[in-house]
């Protein structure tokens, strides 16, 4: 990353009074944090800045340290590839970017939802077979460095 690019992010933080900034662009992942950032503070300030990152954790609603995986579709949530198969993941499963987490079925099309982060699944918030709406939180992931799976 060029110094100019880093400066852009730092300036952005200063201009908007941010104490924490997380940027993801494909494989690129950057965290900038000022000295007075308090990790447990719930930051629900909505930002109308469009970005092309995957929808699932656009806004880190940091009520805890967990990353929220949100549904980008409306449909029915399934934990396994078929009714009698074992679920893709369980609470405690270690996952990496690209791990299939679940299926959201929309109009008879089975859409596999893949994770875009690495970590441990700490909470599964939807029951198998329940309807989910756009933006609904499905999983809470505790982020850690790339896992051996």
């Amino acid at each position: 990353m060029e110094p100019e690019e880093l400066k852009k992010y730092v300036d952005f933080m200063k201009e908007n009074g941010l104490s924490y900034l997380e940027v993801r662009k494909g494989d690129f992942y950057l965290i900038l944090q000022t000295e007075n950032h308090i990790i447990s503070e719930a930051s629900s300030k909505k930002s109308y800045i469009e970005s092309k990152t995957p929808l699932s954790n656009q806004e880190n609603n940091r009520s805890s340290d967990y990353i929220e995986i949100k549904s980008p579709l409306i449909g029915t949530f399934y934990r396994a590839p078929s009714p009698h198969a074992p679920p893709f993941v369980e609470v405690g499963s270690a996952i990496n970017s690209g791990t299939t987490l679940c299926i959201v079925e929309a109009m008879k099309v089975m859409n596999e939802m893949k994770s875009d982060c690495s970590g441990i699944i700490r909470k599964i918030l939807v029951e198998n077979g329940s309807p989910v709406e756009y933006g609904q939180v499905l999983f809470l992931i505790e982020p850690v460095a790339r896992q051996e799976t």
Partner: protein
Amino acid sequence: MLKRVFVANRGEIALRIIRACRDLGITSIIGYSEADKDSLPVNLADEKICIGPASPLESYLNIPSILSAMDVMHVDSVHPGYGFLSENPFFVEICNSSRITFIGPSADNLRLMGNKSEARRTVSKNRLPVVPGVDNLVDIEDACKQAKKIGFPVMIKASAGGGGRGMRVARNQDEFRIHWSACQQEAKIAFDNPSLYIEKFIERPRHIEIQVLADEKGNVFVFPERDCSLQRRHQKLIEETPSPVVDVYIRKKLQKIARKICKVINYTSAGTIEFLMGGRYAFFMEMNTRIQVEHPITEMITNFDLVKSQIEIASGEKIPYRHNFVGFTGHSIECRINAEDPEKNFLPSPGKIKKLILPGGPGIRVDTHIYQDYIIPPYYDSLIAKLISYGRTREEAIARMQRALQEMKVDGVATTIDFYKKVLEHPVFQSGRYYVGWLEKIQEDSKNSGKNQ
């Protein structure tokens, strides 16, 4: 009767549909974007489901998303409101194959009347008067020749357009050539169809429209006319019914034409036939195949509930009214209150409503989704409230509207309230002798006189 209606819209019309459902005792399910999470209709609907982010393309216009939502919520019908998917024949067909009742006309109705050139052709074929013009022109040389034949000035319009979009006036050949190319480009981009037609431009016309309601048994009801000549950039701002310049003979004539059109095309549900009037001559301009923004003024003078009627018609019921030419009493006016700044060329003014006082009292109806502390999102149109007055006479309706405009306070954003106060005081409005283009003219005049001071 339908049981579970999906409301595929937002703002005041979504609330209107929810209220009709409530009156009928049926369930309303609203599909909303993330930006509308805290809106009034979302909080008042019986059930709700988020269908996408703020952007209309990804939410209110997102057919796959809306289909999924309707599937997951087990709805049996959908009301599209106005705008968005309300006149999309593809959406209607998908609903049909999913066995979801579309509360509105058929896909064929939408396709026919949605193409403004085809609509004119159909009406003209049935020996009904249309605005003189030529349809389906592609070649600029041919178009220029036709324009000369019709006689300048002419209006260039997009065949797939409508609602005031994709149109320009050309006063001579040179202007024609310039505007023709521009219109073609705009039409290609906005409607994915560069096909244009031209109409004789009628000087100082009045925009007069007839509300229709048709059930599936073939009964067609026509309502008293609405005068929607007070526009800015082809967007209606103030509407009234009946029109101050329409007498009982003209009314009957227009209503008969409207009825004939509906019967010829087998129309069902609510719709509006729009005419352009020059003097005592009236010409078919286009048909709107949806419930319209200004429907409340017709409801006030006829005591009909048009949205409820749409749901009843879609349920297969007959309209329980004896006369095809619906009777009326009194006069009604509507002012569309927009979150726009008239001082800044009507620039949209989204933001938080810090203080809200809504008018009330005799003869006042307010259709709105705003509330104290509501944040008007920047992604959608600027209509925040419809202020409707009713009186036994036109004078009483005007006086009540003036009272209501005086009472209404929306602090925190700019609105067009003060602008309407000035219009209603103007002697030309009071005399009823305004025309399409008059509102823009006095706006220009007041801007220029302001500058000269």
